[in-house]
């Protein structure tokens, strides 16, 4: 399996809310800091990337976050226009505005059109070698399979025409495990892990893209070793509680409240470990599992992206 950042095209996906954008933005930042010309693209143009990098809007045409890092948002209509101009060489497209709208409509109705415009644009950037790495903040679990399966699906539905002739090279890039991979993001919780396991299966069954790695985001650090945890449990007894309260000049309740924070951390961490064990057991052993620690500050924006990027960098170098 190639090293993660030496891929050409990475689709970052996972259940909504697990931190897909954060991981995609951090991976792209890391790659660019290592001197790779990197494009990062959000497929659902909600402005998440702009918020992550604190860089202002990221249009289809791209915005430089730094010298080696460009961020963009997908826009299927713009993608179509670019496609018609560059590939299909339809020269009059500028004069017939309704065509784009018409296409938007067909794309709504016809299976795979919107998806192929999205995936096609990303593969196009890879094929043309404009960037060393394209990182995709892909759709969540629900629709990413449809997106990545669209090129093969279209081959069955559309027998002729330009779209058909384009799917072959797109499929070649998507299915090449040395160039293209999926990064599955999850958190150490029941539902996200269940969805990650499910998605890993569907990716391999229904799409040509192979799984490059799984990122477990928001992993709580281990608080106590075994004998330390025994000591901690003793602290909650009336005698010890009384002693602490006396020494600190406070009530038992306040000391209890302080202990509760650590107890919560221990419980949550233990639950999380069980879910991560299940994750490890159910994804193929050769797929690496990277851990990103919980950011207690719940900082968002560039500062959080940098922290996650550092964590990923450490994980990738071990």
């Amino acid at each position, binding site marked *: 399996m190639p090293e993660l950042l030496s891929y050409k095209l990475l689709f970052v996906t996972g259940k909504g*809310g697990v931190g897909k954008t954060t991981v995609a933005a951090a991976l792209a930042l890391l790659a660019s800091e290592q001197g790779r010309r990197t494009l990062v693209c959000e497929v659902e143009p909600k402005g998440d990337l702009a918020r992550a990098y604190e860089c202002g809007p990221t249009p289809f045409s791209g915005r430089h976050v730094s010298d080696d890092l460009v961020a963009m948002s997908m826009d299927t209509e713009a993608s179509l226009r670019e496609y018609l101009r560059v590939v299909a060489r339809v020269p009059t497209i500028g004069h017939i505005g309704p065509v784009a709208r018409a296409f938007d409509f067909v794309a709504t109705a016809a299976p795979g059109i919107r998806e192929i415009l999205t995936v096609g644009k990303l593969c196009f950037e890879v094929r043309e070698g404009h960037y060393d790495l394209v990182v995709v903040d892909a*759709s969540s679990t629900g629709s990413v399979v449809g997106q990545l399966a669209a090129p093969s699906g279209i081959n069955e*539905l559309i027998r002729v025409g330009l779209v058909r002739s384009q799917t072959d090279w797109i499929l070649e890039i998507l299915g090449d495990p040395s160039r293209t991979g999926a990064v599955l993001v999850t958190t150490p919780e029941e539902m996200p892990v269940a969805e990650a396991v499910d998605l890993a299966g569907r990716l391999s069954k229904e799409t040509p893209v192979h799984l490059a790695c799984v990122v477990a985001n928001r992993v709580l650090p281990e608080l106590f070793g075994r004998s330390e945890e025994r000591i901690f449990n003793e602290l909650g007894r009336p005698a010890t509680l009384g002693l602490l309260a006396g020494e600190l000049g406070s009530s038992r309740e306040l000391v209890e409240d302080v202990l509760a924070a650590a107890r919560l951390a221990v419980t949550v961490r233990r639950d999380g470990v069980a879910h991560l064990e299940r994750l490890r057991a159910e994804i193929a052993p050769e797929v690496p599992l990277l851990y990103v620690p919980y950011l207690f*500050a719940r900082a968002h924006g560039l500062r959080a992206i940098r922290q996650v990027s550092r964590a990923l960098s450490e994980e990738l170098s071990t």
Partner: protein
Amino acid sequence: MSPAAGRERAAATAAQAAQDQTRHLEQLLSAKEIVVACGPGGVGKTTISASLAATASARLGGRVLVLTVDPARRLADALGVGGLGNVARRVPDEAFAEAGVRPKGELYAAMLDMSESWDGLVRRHAPDAGTAGQILANPLYRNITRRFAQGHDYIAMERLYELHEQGDYDLLVVDTPPSLNALDLLDAPGRMAEFFSSRLLRWLVVPYRSRLVNLASRPFYQVADRILGSQFLEDLAGFFILFQTMRDGFVARAEAVNRLLRDVRTTFVVVTTLEAVPAVEAEQLIESLRARHLHLGLLVCNRVLPGSFSDPPVGRIAELLGQRSGELAESLASLLPEDAASAGRPSAEMIGRVLNEVARSFANFRLVATREAELQGELSAAHEVTATVPYHPGHVTDLKGLLEVGARIWGDEAATTPPPARTSPRRRSNRRRPGTSTGDDAPEPPSRGASS
């Protein structure tokens, strides 16, 4: 003021707030027939919807149905009804008995089955059984219904309408599907109607030969033919010609669904966690509900850390514990029992390490709790009544758990653990500046600007 007196006062305020919250919720759920739970993905909407429905059936009585999309099917297990489908199942009284509750009413649960619901729509709206059969057999049909943008949202709203029409239930609680944008849900019926009246759909279904004559659609077809191939367009057109036969039914239905969402009997519950991204989405959702004159009945902040984490006196004790961990460990060393595994009393050094970790852990959670308090302040300033459900490690796995969550939404336990920020229910029309008392802010029956 001593910390103890401050705590008592806070507890008294919280108790008042809890009473107000209970009253508001009971009035809301008695007055409304439909509760739509919406919010960002991954915040626990399914659990909150089920908790609301279970608690309403137990406390208020009547027939209550929760319509869910629960993809993990965990809810079915939690409710003890086995598999869930489009057909509602009654949650057995034994399940309530196990939870130690004698419900006043009856609780039902159903799951949204997308393809079954679409098929049902086609059968209802197609002019005859033959056309329905042709549509259902068309290979494009499955693809299109599965991928039709916002199709799932539409189906959820459509099922809600159907269930309401049948009139079998006193209260319907619907859990909405996770979508790209929570707002899509509100636009889904309108978009469905728009789809059928679109000029482009008409272009697609005109007979092939007249297309190239029609000036308006000619450029479209020239480009489309070149890119997609005319055979595919023919297939597509064939399908839409069939689909068109359902137009009137679909449009009328979509409009009815839209009216129902705006009806005085419908209320929206926004569910969110107090993390930056979901909170921003929730705020946009609240604004958008308001802009559309939809009734926002309740904001539920889920998985909120206990208020003590942002309580200054507790924070001071945590700091002291860390600073004085060395000497405290010395005193504790003689008090702690021997450890069977290591055959000896734990060393003061090790105890000191544990105390330091406890202090550090508290500091970590305090940061999170402070952020949460800030976000909750912003969110609840924006609108009416806020319920806070505390962070709960693990998952709700049975009816008892759902009823416990419901109790928090009702405000039962708020008196003992005040939420981190502004605990009083507040309403938009009666908003006060921070710092003024809100204790007399008794909720009135829910009302809306424009009722139908």
